[in-house]
């Protein structure tokens, strides 16, 4: 009996060791939790996800946070202690908040350079100064995601057929010429209906007027800062804004500005459509981006067979032509104002931050792994880095022309906006390789839209500015709209500046100046 029992125990013991060894083998695969921008949730067995698990030798657990309520849901997960290793921050100005909460791992330029050399190179080459924006209190926490096409400022779109009707041949270059054209659009019946049912411009057109004074003071959800005599001030309280507002108040009184401008040009649905413009209510807009307004044939692009053909119309141009086939568009340069400035709003190039979660900080191998995954987005080979997000070339998308980096999605993925989230392309980030595609080249070379864009001198969200932002923007909207509609006199601007500064604007300004001085020293 004893002998048999001993043998049984021995066999059992060996068996357990083998099982344990086998289990330990499968258990050593690194697990990485991922929170990134997703348009659809990713099932755990998604094709690309499995491929990358093999490639990087890890197991991914994707949080599947809905992009619409991203920060709200992320905060819930963080409160529950679920900190993602691959940590995406959608609203760039919240980086400081997350650092304060202690949920981000400390990185360093050396670490990034070592594990993500391509990423480091592309950001420091094409977006100098942006890597420093990921530093909080001198320590690098986040890697910026820089939008490559935001070097193109917002477009200035005119109804060319209306211009012909009122006898203007050239798109305006100065604010004075612009004013004359706007008055003609409002007064001289450019649509030929015999009724006074047209206006020159609406809400987004105001951006062009402010731009002529070198400002982006209004209608932006992030603070735009500018230098005024060596000091950093918020565009909303710049002295030149008063001049611009006086001009706009006059135009509103004369019926040149659409009275419905307060509610905006878009009436819901796809955000880029300017319903006021497409329905023929106004003759000028600066809504959306350049590629929405490309009329068919303004540039050549490569089609499915590899030949050069005229381009298809942009999304909003298509809507315009569908409702009014005889409409024509003209693209104008940013306006020169009476103070000698020229420009128009440019979206901040800093979009988001990619960080590593605090839970990974104690495991240098994990930190390195996350950085290596991020590096894949910056792969110098266009096909490789595009496949990283959109899936295999030839299956989901087709490369048409290597030089202009033109590609098309293969049916049915061309109509399926969010397929790349579904198949697992959720590990990528935007990198600022200069845009080579035909549409961007048209905007930069032909229209010259790569120059004169007004960016904010500070693109990160500073703590005090974030604290007071909602209140300050409410005050700003109240006074700006009040002055333009004539409910308040132009002199109310001084009262506005006082109120703005007293409600936290002065603190935010001081903080901005300190930050700017510190950054300039580096």
């Amino acid at each position, binding site marked *: 009996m004893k002998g048999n029992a001993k043998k049984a125990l021995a066999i059992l013991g060996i068996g357990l060791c083998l099982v344990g060894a086998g289990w330990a083998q499968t258990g050593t695969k690194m697990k990485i939790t991922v929170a990134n921008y997703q348009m659809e949730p990713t099932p755990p067995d998604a094709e690309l996800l499995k491929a990358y698990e093999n490639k990087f030798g890890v197991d991914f657990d994707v949080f599947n946070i*809905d992009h619409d309520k991203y920060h709200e849901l992320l905060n819930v997960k963080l409160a529950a202690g679920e900190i993602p290793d691959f940590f995406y921050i959608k609203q760039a100005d919240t980086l400081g908040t997350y650092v304060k909460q202690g949920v981000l791992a400390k990185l360093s330029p050396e670490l990034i350079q070592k594990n993500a050399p391509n990423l480091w190179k592309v950001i420091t080459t094409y977006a100098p100064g942006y890597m420093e924006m990921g530093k909080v209190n001198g320590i690098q926490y986040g890697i910026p995601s820089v939008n490559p096409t935001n070097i193109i400022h917002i477009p200035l779109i005119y109804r060319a057929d209306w211009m012909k009707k009122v006898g203007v041949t050239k798109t305006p270059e100065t604010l004075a010429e612009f004013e004359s054209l706007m008055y003609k659009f409002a007064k001289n019946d450019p649509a030929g209906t015999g009724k006074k049912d047209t206006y020159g411009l609406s809400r987004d057109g105001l951006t062009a007027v402010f731009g002529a004074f070198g400002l982006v003071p209004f209608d932006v959800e992030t603070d735009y800062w500018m230098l005024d005599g060596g000091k950093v001030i918020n565009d909303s309280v710049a002295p030149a804004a008063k001049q611009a507002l006086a001009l706009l108040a006059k135009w509103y009184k004369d019926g040149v500005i659409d009275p419905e401008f307060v509610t905006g040009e878009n009436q819901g649905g796809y955000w880029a459509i300017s319903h006021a413009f497409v329905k023929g209510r106004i003759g000028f807009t600066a809504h959306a981006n350049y590629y929405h307004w490309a009329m068919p044939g303004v540039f050549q692009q490569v089609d499915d067979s590899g030949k050069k053909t005229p381009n298809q119309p942009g999304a909003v141009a298509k809507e315009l032509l569908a409702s009014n086939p005889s409409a024509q568009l003209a693209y104008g340069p940013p306006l020169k104002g009476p103070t000698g400035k020229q420009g128009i709003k440019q979206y901040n190039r800093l979009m988001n931050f990619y960080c590593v979660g605090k839970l990974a900080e104690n495991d240098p191998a994990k930190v390195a792994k996350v950085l290596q995954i991020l590096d894949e987005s910056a792969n110098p080979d266009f096909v490789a880095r595009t496949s990283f997000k959109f899936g295999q070339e030839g299956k989901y998308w087709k490369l048409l022309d290597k030089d202009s980096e033109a590609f098309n999605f293969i049916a049915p993925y061309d109509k399926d906006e*969010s397929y790349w989230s579904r198949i697992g392309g959720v590990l990528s980030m935007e990198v600022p390789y200069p845009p080579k595609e035909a549409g961007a080249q048209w905007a930069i070379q032909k229209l010259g839209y790569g120059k004169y864009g007004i960016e904010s001198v500070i693109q990160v969200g500073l703590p005090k500015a974030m604290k007071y932002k909602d209140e300050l923007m409410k005050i700003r909207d109240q006074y700006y709209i009040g002055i333009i509609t004539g409910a308040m006199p132009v002199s109310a601007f001084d009262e506005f500046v006082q109120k703005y500064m007293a409600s936290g604007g002065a603190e935010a300004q001081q903080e901005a100046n300190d930050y700017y001085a510190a950054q300039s020293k580096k």
Partner: protein
Amino acid sequence: MSIAGHNIRGGRGFDAFPAINGFLMICFCFITLYPFLFLITSSFSALNASVNGLSLIPRSFTADNYDRVLRNPLIYSGFKNTVVRTLLGTALSLLATLTLAYPLSRKYFPNRGLWTGLIVFTMFFSGGLIPTYLLVRTLGLIDKPWALILPELISAYNFVIVRNYMQTIPDALEESAKIDGANDIKILFRIILPTCKPIIATVALWVAVWHWNAWFDCLIYITKPAGEVLQLVMRRIVIQGTDQITEMMGGKHDAITPEGLKAATILVTTLPILCVYPFVQKYFVKGVMMGSLKG
């Protein structure tokens, strides 16, 4: 008061009131109904109606939108999840609410005031999003369909209404059953529940509609797409294109979900509940009045 055509003073003159009243009511109904009709039109049209104007007849008829909606696998899995959740959730909610309300409606139940008071007290406060999430997570319900049913199983409001209704049932009924030798459970299921039919139908309707429409709990508790409910799938399709940041991230797509597709999605997901509503509507009206607190 006038009765069709004859006014109260006994005269025979034509009374315009019913005609005008009826006409105004029809106008009012049309105004309420029109957005829905517009949705139907939009779902059958290929053009973006917001740009091309409203009309009752679709400008360019197409069944394409419905084709795409019905080909989306998430619609079917969403539908299944929603139906399962609604049926199971309603049944369990009813069971729990009824068995909670019955003892607390009996006057002889000890400390009845205390228990009722505690339950009503919970109606005034809520822990908030994060504590609730932590609770559900600690219970191990994340990614399980039970996370959609258990947290909201008993609504204090529904409990109060059921309890009040049960209080109106005469004690004699119960006593006579006791004399015949029935125990409490038999009394509940054989005697009390059959008389509670209206309130059961009402609460069932409220709970069912709540389950059908719920999406936020699914958003935070379920992370795998196969477990999503229909409303979540629909919401995602309908809000597409409204977020400007989306475009800067998604890149090259020109094909933004047209409004027709969104309208078709809304109709496909709303139609089932729309069909059920007329049949239970009379209980709805009766039940609201019955559950009101008296004295």
